[in-house]
């Protein structure tokens, strides 16, 4: 079996007396989609923050491509090849769609302390951006102001931005959140296509999508990983059912 690309070991995070992340370990191998699921309040968001570098863990390590990135800032992790999308769409609304992606390409293409040439005229950046946009099906929307895109298009734009940073791993935080059925269908097709080239850590509430896409699934409940396994194994797990049933009984 292939070596893990991302390996999280023994991650812990406490807020006051509350263990929000409790000894979490998981890994993502090249070319696989590893889905992270769990009821609301399980600590998914905090875990993602620690993997992407916006929250520092109390203990544990994050190793990416054989490099210990536990203390890396968010921008440094991106340069190491870890790209993310946000749960709540985060794009630069005042930029054109193309410029949103070109900015990401710029991060991967030499120094940005260049002052004399207009950035929008840099063919190499625009070319890379167009490629990423074509990948997600937004090629014909390149000139539009990003804020004017539909919700589903914005989700796709986020993925294009992530692709333009030339990542090895995509961390997608609920990429389907708020998308309509048709848009969901399109995004699932897109993710399936991306899977061959990128390792993907997918956090998603849409169980149908998770079971359709994931190679492996980890279930997070109350800050702990209670199960990791193939889709069939997870479907059969009594513990997982209990975690989700518990949520249904106490909706909050």
């Amino acid at each position: 079996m292939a070596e893990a690309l991302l390996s999280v070991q023994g991650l812990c995070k406490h807020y006051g007396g509350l263990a929000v992340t409790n000894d979490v370990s998981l890994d993502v191998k090249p070319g696989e989609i590893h889905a992270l699921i769990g009821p609301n309040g399980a600590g998914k968001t905090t875990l993602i923050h620690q993997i992407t570098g916006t929250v520092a863990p109390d203990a544990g390590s994050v190793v990416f491509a054989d490099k210990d990135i536990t203390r890396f800032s968010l921008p440094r992790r991106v340069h190491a090849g870890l790209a993310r999308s946000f749960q709540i769409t985060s794009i630069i609304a005042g930029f054109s769609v193309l410029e949103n992606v070109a900015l990401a390409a710029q991060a991967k293409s030499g120094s940005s302390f260049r002052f004399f040439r207009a950035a929008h005229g840099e063919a190499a950046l625009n070319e890379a951006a167009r490629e990423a946009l074509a990948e997600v099906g937004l090629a014909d929307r390149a000139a539009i102001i990003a804020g004017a895109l539909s919700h589903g298009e914005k989700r796709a734009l986020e993925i294009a931005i992530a692709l333009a940073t030339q990542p090895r791993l995509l961390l997608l935080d609920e990429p389907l959140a708020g998308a309509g059925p048709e848009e969901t269908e399109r995004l699932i097709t897109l993710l399936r296509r991306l899977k061959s080239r990128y390792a993907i850590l997918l956090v998603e509430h849409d169980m149908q999508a998770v079971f359709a896409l994931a190679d492996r699934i980890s279930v997070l409940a109350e800050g702990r990983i209670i199960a990791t396994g193939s889709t069939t194994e997870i479907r059969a797990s009594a513990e997982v059912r209990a975690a989700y049933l518990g949520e249904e009984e106490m909706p909050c």
Partner: protein
Amino acid sequence: MPRLRLDVALTLLVLAVLALAPFIGLGANHYLTMFARMMILAAAAVSLSFLVGGAGLASLGHAAAMGVGAYAVAILDAHRLTDITIVLPVALAAAALFSLLTGAIAIRTEGVNFIMITLAFGQMAFFTASSLAAYGGDDGYTLYDRTEIFGSRLMENRIFFHYLCLGFLIFCWGLCAMLLASRFGRVLRAARENPLRTQAVGFAPYPFRLLAYVTAGTLAGLAGVLFANATEFVAPAYMGWQRSGELIFMVILGGLGRLSGAILGAVVFVLLETWLPSLTAHWKMIFGPLLILAVLFMRGGLIGFLGARRG
């Protein structure tokens, strides 16, 4: 998109009038004095607009950097060093260093705290200037000479000085516009709008912002050199928070987010400042409410206002 470029057209018109001023009956000394003030303040306002509208750094201490440039001229003048080969490098270095030191701390903060800490640094500079007893202290300092250009007294020629100021204004406008369009500026603009997203594509905003802050401060310092030469006088008030407030006024009055807005704002400001006192000694009782009305009813500044009227 002709409407979008209305501000630029208007600004070019203003610059053309300034360029032709000596030939179209506006060459009298009192006009030239007013124009010099207008152009220098406009250049400082453009650098502030670059900082606020471009990089999203709302500084309320921009006048301090301008004052540092002006005081460099005064202090060297007191030691009879007036040649541009000395004055210019010293003023540039002083303004850049001041901006670097204050910016390094200020940019660590955000939002309101940034406004306040830049205000505090401005006040520090103000009090430092007041303490310079050898250079006039509270009362200010009158220059012996204007800066000499390779030993010549060209700066004392009013026409030459007029075009020098105009050239400097155009230089500032061009430079800031070029920077905003560059890769560097793209990161600044992105970080202004969405800092988290900018980090998530791999940019740490801090060094970009700091460089923008130093650049704007250095340009303001240069404006200060010209300002000291224009008035042949330097005083702590050049650095005070009221002056910073006036610069902010020019930027916002013209229209934040457009460099050309700062030029239009400065023109209107200086015209008001010249005209209103001729109506009443208490002209600030008119100016204050005008300011309030401008904020309340002209969102987007003059440019937004004109655009809306046309549309």
